[in-house]
């Protein structure tokens, strides 16, 4: 994307341009559902039930393949047998890509912390942007995670090559109103 990599007319993009770009991105998140275990049902409730209805936040939950997705929600227990598939599908997603780890199992292993077949945390395989605690988290918690991610996307800067780095898949710390900068 020339705007991001080269800037406007060879200069840094102006702030309104940055704002508009981020604003457009944050309300058109294509979300790939990686439903693994119990959390998948709660994710389904957040997506499909009229009470929660995630689509009103600008999340489109039905991409046909990970190659069209901006966001993946890992919801459920990641086992060692499943881990290579998760890594492979994550690599198929185009940059910039975001990961939400939903539930204790995906965060750290959860109740299976001493199991022989469970990967203790999906962050051992792929980088995670937002962790949602809970076993399983309520659908509202997932909605909160989406809102936090949208704030994050809005605050991503273009001017200092930050977004270009993000486009290349590098980790860039982002300061939002509510989250402090992570080292």
């Amino acid at each position, binding site marked *: 994307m020339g705007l991001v990599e080269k800037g406007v007319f060879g200069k840094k993009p102006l702030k309104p341009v940055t704002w508009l770009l981020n604003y457009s991105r944050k309300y058109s998140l294509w979300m790939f*559902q*990686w*439903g*693994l*275990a*119990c959390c*998948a*049902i*709660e994710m*389904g*409730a957040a997506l*499909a*039930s*009229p*009470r929660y209805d995630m689509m009103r936040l600008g999340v489109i939950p039905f991409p046909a393949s990970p190659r069209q997705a901006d966001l993946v929600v890992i919801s*459920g*227990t990641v*086992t060692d*047998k*499943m881990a290579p*598939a998760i890594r492979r*599908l994550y690599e198929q997603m185009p940059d910039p890509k975001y990961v939400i780890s939903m539930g204790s199992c995906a965060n750290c292993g959860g*109740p*299976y912390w*001493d*199991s*022989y*077949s*469970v990967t203790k945390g999906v962050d051992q395989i792929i980088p995670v942007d937002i962790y949602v605690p809970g*076993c*399983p988290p*309520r659908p509202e918690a997932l909605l909160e995670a989406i809102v936090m991610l949208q704030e994050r996307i809005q605050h991503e800067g273009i001017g200092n090559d930050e977004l270009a780095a993000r486009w290349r898949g590098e980790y860039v710390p982002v300061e939002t109103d509510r989250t402090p900068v992570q080292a």
Partner: protein
Amino acid sequence: MTTTETPGFEVDPALHRTLENARVNVELDNGDMILNLGPQHPATHGTLRLVVRLDGERVVAADPVIGYMHRGYEKLSEFRTYPQITTLINRIDWLSSFANEVPFVSGAEQLMGVEAPPRAQWIRTILTELSRIATIYLFLGEMGLQVGALTPAFWGFRDRELVLNLIEGATGGRFHPNFNRIGGLKDDLPWGWISECRATMDKILKGCDDFEDVLVGNEIFEARTRGIGIIPGELGAAYGVSGANLRASGVDWDLRRDGKPYLAYPEIDFKVWTHPDGDSFARYWVRLQETREAVRMVIQLLDGLPAGSIMAKVPRIIKVPEGEVWVEVENPLGQMGYYIVSKGATGPFRVKIRSASFSNVSILPWLLRGVYVPDVITIMGSLYFILGDIDR
């Protein structure tokens, strides 16, 4: 249950002739195609991987690859105490969490010689039936999704929330209640819960009518499910298929009525629904009737709820004396059993878990031979398995 020998798949000779006529270009490679469904596929309810070998549109062989959700419950149980294990086994069949706890807890109670008070038994029965409704309701909606109807899926999620609210109101946990204690329950029902439960049951019955109006009798739905995926009753029993899948094949067998008496089931009146056809439609129909029956049972249980305490007298530190026990119950997905071996410690020595879905999917290789690819999805949807229940 008599076991019969497995009949092989026989191709109809008339069908062979049609295939011969259709073969125009003899130079085309007619080798089989391997199609990999899953492990991540929306129609597989999780992470079941199914490798199907196709001849054109027709499935020649299907092989389920399981284990993507294996979390090692049986091994973990050996390192937990009895009260801790109910936290784990909630998550085996994650849709009907409460129903999973009951057989394990009652098994431990049998070993200890403790019996939960009647009120606790009745509340357990009510919550089991509520979780049955919550489980089957998702199926009633999703089955529409498998044949391309999106509306029932939304209805399923909508009305399921009402039942989850009830479970949350009583237990504090929306999804995994962890409400059973050895010897009783954690808490009594809260104020106003019973009247709220009655009101919700009316809504559930109305929702069942909606499903029946939209799907049962719908031409597309019947075309996609009638005569598809027929499980003969005896063969299903030989494979270990249980629950509504077996009752849809005309086998009148329900552990709530036929098994060893447990909970409050001997004291209430209910009908076990069967259907003679054994196809996908029959499985849908039987589950629909079971939901209505569960509503009827909940109302009966609310009417006759006895007073009294909800917790028997048990020691503070639970140690189960030496012994072995086998408990089996009728879960929403089928027969679920625990074989508990105790050596007198605070945790079990060995727990063997018999879960319904594992046996239910074991018939898939036989069942999917010879069907068309789109029907694979409806058959898998109609068998209704939960991946945690398969892989454990």
